[in-house]
């Protein structure tokens, strides 16, 4: 970002000024997205293609991760609950943990790693090979075609992936509980739905939308602003993942506060 500042026109220090300049660029980038998203032509096919890549192609990885998370979390929670003789509470505990936090969080983190890095690297390489400039020359809006489609796809696919993750994680938990506590599937799911509320599901979905938007937006931003050739591509992919994961945790914290506020009303 050192190239952002030229000459002696710094306000604070070079680093602090660069931080605020980066922030302003990010804001402008997001603002541009919200403007471009409503303006035709809508790149519907590209959106579907990105949905296929981001959503469908991530499904095996997300499903496996969700299944393992369900089993591991159940197994790790059992000793604590069995100390109170409360292993019958496992379905309730798992449902709350999976639906409220772990489902969205695990999905978002996996997607940040898989999707965020791929978007960052893809757009970054397009940027350094001047393909984006070529698109502009050929009267194609690169922002609309590359950024808006990917951000939309990730925004809508992450909640769908979260639903899959929740379902698969609960099935994994059920498998573990069924083997150890001989709980039937109907009893398990009655307890699961007894512990969660509409607020849990809605907050989980809204949170997932925000996570998806963040992953897409950070990946696109880092890729779109990558420099320094191939080295910049790797840096863009890496920083896209790191920044997306960091923001996801921040958003998780904020969503927890907001959900608790609504829970108390």
């Amino acid at each position, binding site marked *: 970002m050192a190239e952002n500042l030229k000459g002696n026109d710094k306000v604070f220090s070079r680093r602090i000024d660069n931080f605020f300049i980066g922030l302003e660029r990010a804001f402008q980038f997001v603002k541009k997205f919200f403007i471009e998203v409503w303006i035709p032509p809508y790149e519907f096919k590209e959106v579907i293609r990105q949905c296929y890549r981001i959503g469908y192609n991530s499904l095996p990885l997300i499903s496996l991760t969700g299944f393992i998370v369900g089993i591991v979390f159940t197994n790790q929670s059992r000793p604590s609950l069995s100390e109170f003789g409360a292993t019958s509470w496992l379905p309730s505990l798992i449902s709350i943990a999976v639906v409220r936090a772990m489902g969205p969080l695990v999905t978002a983190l996996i997607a940040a790693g898989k999707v965020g890095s791929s978007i960052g690297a893809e757009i970054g390489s397009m940027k350094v090979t001047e393909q984006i400039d070529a698109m502009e020359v050929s009267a194609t809006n690169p922002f609309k075609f590359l950024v808006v489609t990917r951000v939309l796809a990730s925004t809508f696919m992450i909640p*769908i992936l979260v639903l899959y993750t929740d*379902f698969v994680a609960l099935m994994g938990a059920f498998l573990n509980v069924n083997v150890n506590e001989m709980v039937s599937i109907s009893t398990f799911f009655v307890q699961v739905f007894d512990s969660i509320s509409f607020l849990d599901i809605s907050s989980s979905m809204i949170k997932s939308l925000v996570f998806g938007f963040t992953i897409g937006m950070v990946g696109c931003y880092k890729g779109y602003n990558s420099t320094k050739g191939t080295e910049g591509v790797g840096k863009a992919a890496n920083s896209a993942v790191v920044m997306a994961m960091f923001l996801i945790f921040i958003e998780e914290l904020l969503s927890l506060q907001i959900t608790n506020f609504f829970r108390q009303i």
Partner: protein
Amino acid sequence: MKNDNKRLVTVGIFVLIGIAILVVGILTLGAQQKAFVKSISVTSVFDDVGGLQTGNNVWFSGVKIGTVKKINFYGESQVEIEMNIESSAKEYIKKNSKATISSDGLIGNKIIVIYGGSGQGPAIEDGDVLTAEMPLDTDKMMETLQVNNNNLVSITEDLKILTHKISSGEGIVGAVLTDSTLVKTFKATMQNLERTAANSNRMTADLAKFSNGLNQKGGFVDKMLNDTTLFASLKTTAAQLETTSAEASDAAQNFSSVSENLSDTDNAIGMLLNDKEFADYLKSTMSSLDTGAVRMNETLEALRYHWFFRKSFRKRDKADAASE
């Protein structure tokens, strides 16, 4: 183009399944939490709700029939609980039912429990207020437990003193446990008891035999119980005995009057028995008679040697000698 269509269909199926999971989840949740069920609203006012929260369950006879809708402060420091109750359950809940706060497990969520209500009373309606029954307060329970603990401490202290005394041989129990003489005596007593028990056994056997004998057909008791002739005879005897006893009673009365007369001095025997003066007189008379008799003997002896009677006495002596 073909590839694009394939991708489109795949994404469509993928999204559809995802949305299906969401819809099924929402419907299941709604069905389980009775979100889409027609309900009525009733309230109850508690002094303390003990951490009850909005959304907690309402139970009636152990069945979930609704949820807590709102918790509001009421009056000075009371809490008004607004509950949503399924319309299908309202006919079973009477207006005089009570509401209390309980828990769905030892450390489970707080719940409202509706109970009671007479069978004849009218069913609750929307907007009704149920009487609140305050639940058992944990703090009060702990206070009672503390009293129990104090009592336990004093009991154990007493027990400690008691056991110490017993172990050092004080008192009857201590003596029983430590004194060997007592043990011997106890053993001897037990042996005696054993013998007594054996004797009792024998006696019981004898009694059994005896009672068997009594039960035998034709025996005395059997006759007593079954022979009507004997019974009639016994009845007659008893009647006679009664007469005899009545007569004996009369005789005893006569004896009594005779003895009374005997103690008096206005009759011959009474005077003889009781009059000292007469006794003295009789005594002196007897004494005079005795003296007279001696003198009479002397006179008669003298007559034996008188010439007039001498001959007849000799004749009698000879006759006696001859007969011997």
